[in-house]
């Protein structure tokens, strides 16, 4: 892996965070905390790993992406805009009347969204259906899903996990954005997840745990998945920090679902500019 590509992806992640922050600031509504914890993984997927075509968002052989934690869609919308799926200027209509950029992703309104999500715990089942169809049709596409750690409290996640293993979906790659926070507090306080990597391993997944803000580790993990197919789905549990990249948002439950004011916005933008420390 050339250092250049890693550096480019890091810059992509900066651009994603800045765009998402601006969307949320303009809308005065949205979820910055989880958008930022997911940003580096999204950058690696949209700017390197996924086989997608912005000019043909419904291309039947494309890789799919399921944002099961749908509330962090500003970071996905930013990727769609920066990759040219949508006109960059239009994304500042986030959460406005008539906008394709709904508060939670809507596949019928926004090009590049493979499934509508927003009700937590449901996206992984849809990803399993997509991956299963790909297997049955002997297609080469892969399906990537991003789960929140909080939503792993939903029983349906584990229903979906067992079906991914049963059907040997080695074309399915799950990221868990393990940022340790949910609306009412830490996951430890609200409902401890125990070790999510061990849980997925026990279900029969190929698993690994990485630093979800290290572009080197994200890219290496994805390289590893690509080179080893063993009839098992993969789960990459990512240690992340909610609000990553903006000091006053990091590790903060408060910044789960509120928008910055003008001053906070300017301060946050300045911090993001330099990339992750």
């Amino acid at each position, binding site marked *: 892996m050339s250092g250049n590509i890693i550096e480019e992806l890091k810059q992509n992640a900066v651009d994603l965070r800045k765009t998402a922050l601006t969307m949320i600031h303009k809308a005065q509504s949205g979820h910055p905390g989880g958008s930022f914890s997911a940003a580096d993984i999204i950058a690696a997927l949209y700017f390197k790993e996924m086989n997608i075509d912005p000019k043909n968002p419904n291309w*039947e052989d494309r890789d799919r992406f399921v944002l099961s934690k749908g509330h962090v869609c500003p970071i996905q919308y930013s990727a769609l805009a920066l990759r040219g799926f949508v006109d960059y200027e239009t994304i500042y209509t986030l959460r406005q009347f008539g906008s394709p950029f709904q508060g939670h992703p809507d596949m019928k309104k926004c090009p590049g969204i493979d*499934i*509508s999500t927003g009700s937590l715990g*449901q996206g992984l*089942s849809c990803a*399993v259906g997509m991956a299963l*169809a790909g297997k049955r049709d002997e297609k080469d596409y892969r399906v990537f899903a991003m789960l929140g750690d909080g939503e792993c409290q939903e029983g*349906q996640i584990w*229903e979906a996990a067992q*079906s991914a293993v049963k059907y040997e979906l080695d074309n399915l790659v799950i990221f868990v954005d393990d940022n340790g926070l949910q609306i009412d507090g830490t996951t430890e306080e609200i409902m401890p997840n125990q070790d999510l990597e061990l849980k997925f391993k026990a279900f029969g997944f190929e698993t690994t745990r990485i630093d979800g803000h290290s572009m080197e580790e994200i890219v290496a993990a994805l390289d590893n998945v690509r080179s080893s197919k063993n009839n098992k789905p993969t789960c990459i549990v990512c240690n992340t920090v909610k609000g990553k990249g903006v000091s006053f948002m990091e590790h903060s439950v408060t910044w789960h679902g509120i928008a910055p004011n003008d001053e906070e916005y300017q301060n946050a933008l300045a911090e993001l500019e330099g990339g992750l420390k």
Partner: protein
Amino acid sequence: MSENKVLQKKATREAFGDEIVRLGGLNKDIYVVDIDIGKSCKTTEFANKFPKQHVNVGIAEQNGAGLAAGLATTGKIPFVSTYAVFGSLRMAEQIRQEICYPNLNVKIACSHGGLTPANDGASHQAIEDMGVLRTIPNMTVVMGADYHSTRKLVAQAAEKYGPVYLRFTRDTMPFIYDENEEFTIGEAKKLKDGNDIAIIANGDTVFLALEAAKQLESKGISVKLLDIHTIKPLDRDAVVECVKIGKIITVEDHNIINGLGSAVSEVVAEEGRGKVRRIGVQDQFGQSAPYEKLLELNGITIENIVNTAQEMLL
């Protein structure tokens, strides 16, 4: 309509089982998503004949619905098969979020509708299902009256794009229609034309309504009888024709709240004239008992339909 076949009986879940095999052979995009109870829901032959079009998620309804949505995004036409009480309520929000909201081409095909799983008791009797699902945008809600009509309606559901809820009986039901009779989702089937009273029924109560209509006719009462197999989209024009008669009885194996009777009453109220009497489950849970006994406890009987008609005509 075949007067001579009334003694022949078959459960409408058998109609689903037979028709889905025919459809699966014609179209490789037709999938069945089982939730463990394939034997009971009559999908075993499909599973054996078309293993590549079959999925069994085990006892996990929510995942079954979501997985079907994922299949549908790739152009498959999945039929999620389970019991009506689970297929409507256990996976209600998955149907709303992942199937109806994105308007995906998923069919929810459920056996054990209404009181027909009689011996199983209240836990398995689906009396709220059609009501719950008809309130979700983009959903179509259908229950055939007998074997042949159910086969035709299943075939139509496969052809029609979008979410469809299909409800079948566990128990056997008398044949009402010939196999050549055609059905269109959303169009009422007129079984009798008359002008004293209108009876509107669906599913397993159509046969009861038909027998009641015959008795009323023998008393000199002219009956219009409709099989409204599709409660959503409701055939409004057909109901308006009944409003012209002014006296309407609805009959259903479903709670009288929010099922066929409610759907018809909404039209009647909007038309601003006419009177409706709803015969159906009296907003109460069932219990383990013979199917006929449960119908009787709720007044879903030929006798009660006849008496209600006569009362309305006083």
